[in-house]
């Protein structure tokens, strides 16, 4: 179980909170599980735990809108508890769990199970996303209202994209009653069927059937039109194409109620990474061409793509140890996302640090109307402390996820989460009190994780 909440004073960090235009060195006081206040030189109250954070960034806790925790049904890949701990280790204070488990999360009882297991894990908050359709079969709407009462914060059929435009329209209309967004994995299966990577010259050379960008684009177009028609809140998941980014940008300009996310693998890798039939690069949507990657980066920079989400998709090692066509889609991402965003986006001048905090915390909170995403006084004390300069190498064996299927093994990253706090409780801690130099020491998988 998680340690109890106590009074904590975070001293001297660079406090970045775009929700209140804040970016300066300051002290942050947490009490009773809430942000008490932010000011220069706060005198520590009696019994407070004091952390010296000079040189480190303090921001609202990171929120991942898109993870797969595999429980129930795939516990050998990940459990809600192991996923919540991996999230905490990656700096995430909250994650949104997709419903395509076995059985799927398509009724209030299943939603309640995810909530209860998330609480029991005592690590990152786990918010369930309910299914759009019963059994994710794309036929009948689920009991959305009941699921929302049980704790669902959005609905999505993610891996089983809704093919029927009429059903998608109903979902967008119906979800409005409950004030939740409909998250859409945009893929026209009649266009992507049989494909295993991006359609193009690399796929042609490798002899792998391709998934055209149009398989994603036609559904993005459809869903944008349906959001406009219904006024329902649409969230487009893992955007990977240039045209997709353009259409979302244009729709936002017209006032369509849409938000969107991009994953680290889609902003950091191109289809060339598949060369040599590397199954750890097999993801859906697939890694795209350089022009698409550039557009995704641009979309993140101008806010067309609101959020960075991992699509953390754990698979057991032997499932990826197969011929490319036979291997499952998906990579894990919780523990590398912040480092990749800092290295590939901030390090390359695409995002400023405050923009990064916005894309990984404030914007996700807004998109799914979650608590968090702000350090205003009175807000829940969900925070992340990271060292933007810490250099580290991704070693799969050291990750806390039950699965090792990272696309970034051996990558040298600059920037890493050190402390994650939820409700004022420290759930991940790589800083022994006061000894900032230890921030750079390699951590072991057994490190304290709540």
């Amino acid at each position, binding site marked *: 179980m998680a340690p109890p909440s106590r009074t904590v004073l975070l001293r001297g960090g660079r406090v970045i909170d775009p929700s209140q235009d804040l970016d300066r060195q300051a002290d942050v006081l947490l009490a009773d599980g809430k942000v008490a206040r932010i000011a220069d030189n706060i005198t520590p109250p009696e019994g407070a735990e004091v952390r010296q954070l000079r040189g480190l960034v303090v921001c609202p806790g990171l929120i991942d809108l898109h993870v797969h925790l595999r429980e129930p049904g795939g516990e050998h890949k990940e459990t809600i508890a192991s996923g919540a701990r991996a999230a905490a280790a990656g700096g995430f204070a909250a994650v949104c769990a997709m419903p395509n488990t076995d059985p799927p999360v398509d009724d209030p009882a299943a939603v309640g199970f995810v909530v209860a297991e998330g609480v029991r894990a005592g690590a990152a908050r786990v918010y369930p996303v309910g299914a759009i359709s019963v059994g994710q079969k794309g036929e009948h709407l689920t009991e959305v209202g009941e699921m929302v009462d049980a704790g669902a914060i959005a609905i999505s059929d993610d891996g089983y994209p809704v093919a029927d435009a009429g059903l998608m329209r109903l979902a967008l209309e119906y979800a409005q009653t409950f004030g939740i967004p409909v998250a859409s994995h945009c893929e026209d299966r009649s266009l992507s069927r049989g494909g295993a990577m991006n359609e193009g010259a690399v796929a*042609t050379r*490798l002899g792998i059937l391709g998934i055209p960008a149009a398989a994603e684009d036609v559904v993005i177009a459809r869903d944008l039109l349906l959001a406009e028609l219904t006024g329902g809140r649409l969230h487009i998941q893992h955007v990977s194409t240039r045209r997709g980014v353009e259409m979302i940008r244009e729709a936002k300009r017209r006032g369509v109620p849409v938000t969107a996310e991009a994953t680290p693998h889609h902003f950091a890798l191109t289809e060339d990474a598949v060369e040599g039939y590397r199954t750890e690069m097999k993801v859906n949507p697939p890694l795209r061409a350089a022009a698409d990657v550039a557009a995704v980066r641009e979309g993140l920079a101008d806010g067309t793509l609101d959020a960075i989400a991992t699509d953390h998709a754990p698979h057991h090692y032997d499932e990826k140890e197969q011929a490319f066509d036979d291997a499952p889609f998906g990579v894990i991402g919780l523990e590398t996302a912040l480092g990749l965003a800092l290295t590939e986006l901030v390090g390359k001048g695409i995002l400023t640090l405050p923009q990064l905090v916005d894309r990984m915390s404030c914007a996700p909170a807004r998109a799914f109307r979650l608590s968090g995403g702000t350090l205003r006084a009175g807000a829940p004390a969900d925070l992340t402390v990271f060292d933007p300069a810490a250099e580290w190498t991704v070693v799969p064996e050291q990750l806390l996820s039950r699965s090792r299927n990272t696309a970034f093994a051996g990558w040298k990253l600059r920037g890493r989460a050190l402390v994650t706090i939820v409700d004022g409780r420290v759930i991940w801690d790589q800083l022994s009190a006061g000894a900032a130099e230890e921030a750079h020491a390699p951590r072991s998988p057994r490190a304290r994780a709540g």
Partner: protein
Amino acid sequence: MLAAPALGKDLVGLERLSAEQIRAVLDTAEPFKEISERRIKKVPVLRGKTIVNLFFEPSTRTRISFEFAEKRLSADTVNIVTVGSSVAKGETLVDTARNLEAMRIDMVVIRHSASGAAEFLAQRIPSNVVNAGDGRHEHPTQALLDMLTIRDHLGRLESVRVCIVGDILHSRVARSNIWGLTRLGAEVAVCAPRTLLPAGIEELGVRVFPRIEAACEWADVLNVLRLQLERMQGGYVPTLREYNRVFGVTRERIERVPRRLLILHPGPMNRGVEIDSDVADGPHSLILDQVTNGVAVRMAVLYLLAGGAPEKAEAAKHGAAE
């Protein structure tokens, strides 16, 4: 005399072979052809070697051709034919690889429905691996025998114009032919309906003919691929009748060309679909030569992978080499 470059541990595809390596296989195949003409068709070149023909996909033709090649070189052979995907059977390719390794075999000839399967195996076992067709990726020995057949008839491959006709999208033969032929200086084109061409095919260095008539006018050789009838369900072409009308290699189409157009087909043929019988059995057809050359090319590949040298192939043929 310079030693010709060895083939390396495996033959996964032609994409990464040099022109010298490809030439070495073709040159080695020449003396081996004669072995098949003898009363006792056997030389002791691979005596004591164990070869497993691991076919996850049925292909009687290719398997038998390899088996003949292996037996003529005196290897001990075991055939494992597993119809359907290994995955469906619950045993993964990596399990199979480990089992083979534990049985101390020397070579594996693998045919698999997934692209990259041969490379996957080659990276994981110490035995020599020969790709006998992986998914839509490569089928190197088929391309080598096609090249040998063309070279036998035209005396060269440089500047020869070869057009591959048919289902390029799903074809492993097409890719291996494109790599091999272009590397040896041939000009290569493809001709198919757009639905059966993979995206970016031009980037592999080939030209595209949308119509068969233009392809016939341009080419010295047509390599006609099988239209896999199961593709019909995918709707890649509307009907077989239309395919034959628009893309079929017919006597009328090849006789309109004032040169002798050579016809290859890797088989098995759909007569009356991609190729008409009077072409397949006619004077332009080199289809039976391909079958004969298939055994010689496979003997050459196995011999080279086992450490044989191309310049010693003549000696090996007389049974002198070990």
